[in-house]
């Protein structure tokens, strides 16, 4: 469970989030909707400790997010950002780097099946990350996030650069994972029109349905 309690957040004196409270239960699929630039992505940065609220507290499974706990909390969340930066080197080198991190040694890093599932050519493994197209990079980030084998997914505009068929495929994949909690930032009807999701209106600060 992730809960945000009376969060106030500002950057350079500009209020980004004002008095927001939100609870997301385990296994829920939640879409955060609102205008772009309204601070929805900052909301996802809070449980990861990438930004600190001016006031209020974020809890992850009942544990307050702070400088001591955040390192373990990060190991429980798989995050995909719309313009994720995968770094230098080849795709295979990135996979090796991720699987060599101490936090991930328990996961089995067999990317091939998932790559095929998301229509990525296996030969891409030898390609440089910089050569990947926007859509390929996005899907590769999705594959890596799934390989991490975590129960919570933060998906920030992950279907933005995909075609209709792939959008459906990605949305179906995550929304059908019953045990997983998904927090999704998106304008895309592929998420919003699905009956399993609850939609939270970020500007009104209330649930739409």
């Amino acid at each position, binding site marked *: 469970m992730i809960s945000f309690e009376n969060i106030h957040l500002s950057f350079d004196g500009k209020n980004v989030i004002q008095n927001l409270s939100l609870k997301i239960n385990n296994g829920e699929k939640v879409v955060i909707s609102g205008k772009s630039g309204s601070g929805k992505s900052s909301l996802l940065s809070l449980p*990861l*400790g*990438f930004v600190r609220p001016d006031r209020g507290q974020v809890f992850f499974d009942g544990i307050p997010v702070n*400088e001591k706990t955040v*390192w373990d909390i990060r190991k429980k969340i798989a995050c995909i950002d719309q313009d994720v930066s*995968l770094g230098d080197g080849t795709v295979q080198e990135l996979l090796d780097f*991720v699987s060599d991190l101490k*936090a991930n040694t328990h996961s089995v890093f067999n990317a091939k099946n998932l790559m095929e599932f998301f229509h990525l050519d296996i030969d891409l493994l030898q390609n440089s990350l910089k050569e990947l197209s926007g859509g390929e990079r996005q899907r590769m980030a999705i594959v890596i996030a799934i390989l991490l084998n975590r129960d919570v997914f933060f998906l920030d505009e992950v279907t933005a650069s995909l075609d209709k068929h792939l959008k459906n495929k990605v949305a179906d994949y995550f929304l059908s994972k019953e045990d997983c909690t998904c927090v999704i930032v998106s304008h895309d009807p592929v998420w919003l029109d699905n009956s399993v999701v609850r939609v939270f209106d970020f500007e009104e600060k209330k649930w739409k349905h």
Partner: protein
Amino acid sequence: METLNIPVLSLAVAFILLIIPVVISIRYGLGMLKTLFVSIVRMSVQLALIGIFLKYLFRWNNPYVNTGWIAVMIMVAVFSAVRSSSIKISRIFLPVFTSFSVATLTVVFYLNTFVIPLDNVFDARYLIVLGGMLLGNSLRGNIVGISTFYKQLRTDSKHYLYVLSLGASRREALLPYLRESIQLALKPTLASMATMGIVTLPGMMTGVILGGASPEVAIKYQILIMIAIVVSTVTSVVLTILLTERVCIDKCGILRADVFTNEK
């Protein structure tokens, strides 16, 4: 073999050579006349003063004065190293000072104790001259190392955060940047070492030979100083990054915006 002294008037003749860069600067519109002039004057005045100063330093040869002067040299090196980075000096003066002191003094005292047969390890001729040589090189390495480390972290912040989100520990997330900074900082030293004697006759050796020593002695000193430079440069670069990282990155692993000046 005696070193020939150069009369002051003859030294003035050397300055005539500077007509060449002046003509080049005017001919190609380099706009460097002022910089050239200021640099030449500074170099001459600074060296003249240090010449007089060293004369007395060597004459007194007092351990406390020698150590005090080394501390001043380290302090100046720290200011130059930090000024070229984008970090506020007040935040990282102490860590960088510690790093430079540890790296330079350990190596110099090791040499003065175990390698050069000295009666007094605080001997100004060795402590200050060797120390200065090591500091100059550490400084060059640190300017590259420290700026690379923080510049990369800042321009690459999206990727750095991605790596943290993958579950990386602080060490795991920072290691690639540390590695790159050390490699870049050491590159010039390693490259010049590899061609030494063939392409370059290094300053230390030229100095010792002109000073009247035989090439055999000069070479021994040069080998010694090159080993010392590599050791003290790599030690100071690593220490500087490890010690400043504690100040510039918070406990959540995020770069602190308030330690940076926003110029670069």
